[in-house]
C-alpha cells in the first residue's frame, strides 16, 4: 500500500518546526506504524539525511513510551491503542497522514516527534508512592482486600503514563494521569496512610508543572490506551476536597 506522510520536523526545543512530506510505497498493511517509520528512517539514512526521531521502547503496548498524534488523534485512529500497536491496516491505501508530536507547554519538543515528558515524573515524585517497610516482599494475604476493590484499583493502576490524555486535552491538563495514581492508591489500604497529603502534593505538583485544569470534556478517557475512566478525575476531586476539609488532629 501507499501512504503520504506529513511529518513534523524540528531541530530542537528552541527552533521552529515544520511539516515535511514523505511519500511511502510498497508498504505492507501488517506493518506497525513504528515499523513504517523505521523503514522511512532507513531510506533517509541511506540518502545521508538526518533520521526522524520518535519515542518508542517495548513496542508491545505496555511501556507508555511511544507517542505521536496521527491525523489529530493521539496514538492514531484506533481507540484505546498505543501507536506501536497501531498497524497500517487501520489506514486506507493512498491516505495522507499528518504525524505530529504530543503538544503541551509541559511537553517541550526535544527533536522532531520526541517530547520531554519528565513533568509527569515530577508529579509522581510529589506523592505517587506509599510508605512501606523495605526488605522482603510481604505476604500477599497479610492485608485482606476485597476482590472488587483490588480489581478497581488495578484499573486505575493500569495507567502507563504515556501522556495521550495531556496531548488530547484542550487545556493540556494531566488530570486523568494524576487521578489514575490518586485513585489507585486511595482505593487500597496501603495508600490510606498518605491519603490526604498525596492528593494535595500531586495536584500542586501538577499545577507547578504548568498543566491546565480539567474541563470534564471526557476526551482524555476516549484516547487512553489503558482505558482509565473519567470517573477517576471525579474521584480525585472528591479526594482533594475531602483532604482540604479534613484535618488529622
Amino acid at each position, binding site marked *: 500500500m501507499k501512504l503520504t506522510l506529513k511529518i513534523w520536523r524540528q531541530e530542537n526545543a528552541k527552533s521552529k518546526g515544520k511539516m515535511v512530506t514523505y511519500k511511502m510505497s510498497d508498504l505492507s498493511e501488517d506493518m506497525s506504524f513504528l515499523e513504517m517509520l523505521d523503514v522511512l528512517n532507513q531510506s533517509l539514512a541511506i540518502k545521508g539525511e538526518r533520521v526522524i526521531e520518535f519515542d518508542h521502547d517495548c513496542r508491545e503496548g505496555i511501556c507508555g513510551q511511544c507517542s505521536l498524534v496521527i491525523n489529530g488523534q493521539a496514538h492514531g485512529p484506533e481507540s484505546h491503542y498505543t501507536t506501536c500497536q497501531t498497524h497500517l491496516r487501520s489506514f486506507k491505501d493512498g491516505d495522507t497522514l499528518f504525524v505530529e508530536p504530543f503538544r503541551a507547554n509541559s511537553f517541550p519538543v526535544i527533536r522532531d516527534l520526541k517530547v520531554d515528558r519528565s513533568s509527569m515524573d515530577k508529579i509522581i515524585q510529589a506523592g505517587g508512592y506509599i510508605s512501606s517497610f523495605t526488605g522482603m516482599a510481604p505476604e500477599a494475604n497479610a492485608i485482606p482486600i476485597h476482590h472488587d476493590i483490588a480489581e478497581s484499583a488495578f484499573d486505575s493502576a493500569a495507567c502507563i503514563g504515556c501522556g495521550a490524555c495531556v496531548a488530547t486535552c484542550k487545556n493540556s491538563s494531566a488530570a486523568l494521569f494524576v487521578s489514575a495514581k490518586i485513585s489507585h492508591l486511595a482505593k487500597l489500604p496501603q495508600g490510606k496512610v498518605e491519603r490526604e497529603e498525596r492528593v494535595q*502534593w500531586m495536584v500542586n505538583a501538577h499545577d507547578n508543572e504548568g498543566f491546565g485544569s480539567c474541563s470534564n470534556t471526557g476526551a482524555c478517557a476516549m484516547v487512553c490506551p489503558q482505558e482509565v475512566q473519567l470517573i477517576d478525575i*471525579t*474521584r480525585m476531586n472528591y479526594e482533594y476536597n475531602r483532604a482540604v476539609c479534613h484535618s488529622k488532629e
Partner: protein
Amino acid sequence: MAVKKGLFKTSVGRKNLMAFTGLFIIFFLVIHLIGNLILVIPNSFFPIEFWNNVANGHDMYNAYSHFLVHFWPVTIVAYILYVAIITHIIDALLITLQNKKSQGEKYIVTDNSTSSWYSRNMGILGTVIGVFLVIHMAQFWLQYKVLKVEHDLYELVLATLKTWWFVLVYEIGIIALGFHLVHGIESAHRSLGIYPKKIMNTIKYIALCFSLVMAILYAIIPIILYFK
C-alpha cells in the same frame, strides 16, 4: 514543596468555585423561570379575584415583581447572586488564561470526535450568555429596579418582546444557556467530586432532561408574548 491550602486555589480548587457559583445560578434560574411563567398564564386561569386584587396575569406579574423588589430577604439573595455571577465570570477568565498558557503549539490537524462541541466551548457559550445578560438587564433590571422609570413591568416586558429581533436575541441567549447547562451541571458535579458511578450516570441524564426542560420553557415565553 509549598502546598496551596484551601478549597479554591489549585486547578482542582478553582473548578470548585465554578461549580458552587454555577449551581447557585441554576437555583436562581429555576426561580426566575417560575416568575416568567406568570407572564403566559391565560386570563381564564383567574376565575375570581383570589389574592390581593389579583384578577389576571398582568396584576399577578406586577404583584410578584413588586414583592421581589420590596421583600428584604430576596434583596440579600439578589446580592449573593450578583457576587456569584461575577465570581463565575472572573474565575472562568482566570482558568481560561491558565489553560491557554498550558497549551503548547497548536496542532495542524485536530480531531474533535472524542468530545462534544458544547463541552469544549463553554467559554464561548458563556460569553454569549454574558452579552445576552447585559442586554437583558439593561432592558428590565435597570429600568425597573435601578432607575425606577417604569412601574408596570408587565407592560414593559410585553412592549419589548413585540420587536422581532429582541425575540431573536432572547432565543439565541436561551439556546446558549441550554447547552451551557447540559455540560455545566454534569461538570459541576464532577468538579465537586460526586463520584459513585451510578449517581454520576443519573446526574448526566438529569442534567440533560433539566436543561432541555429549562431551555424549552424559557424559549417559548418570548414567542408566546410576541404573538399575544
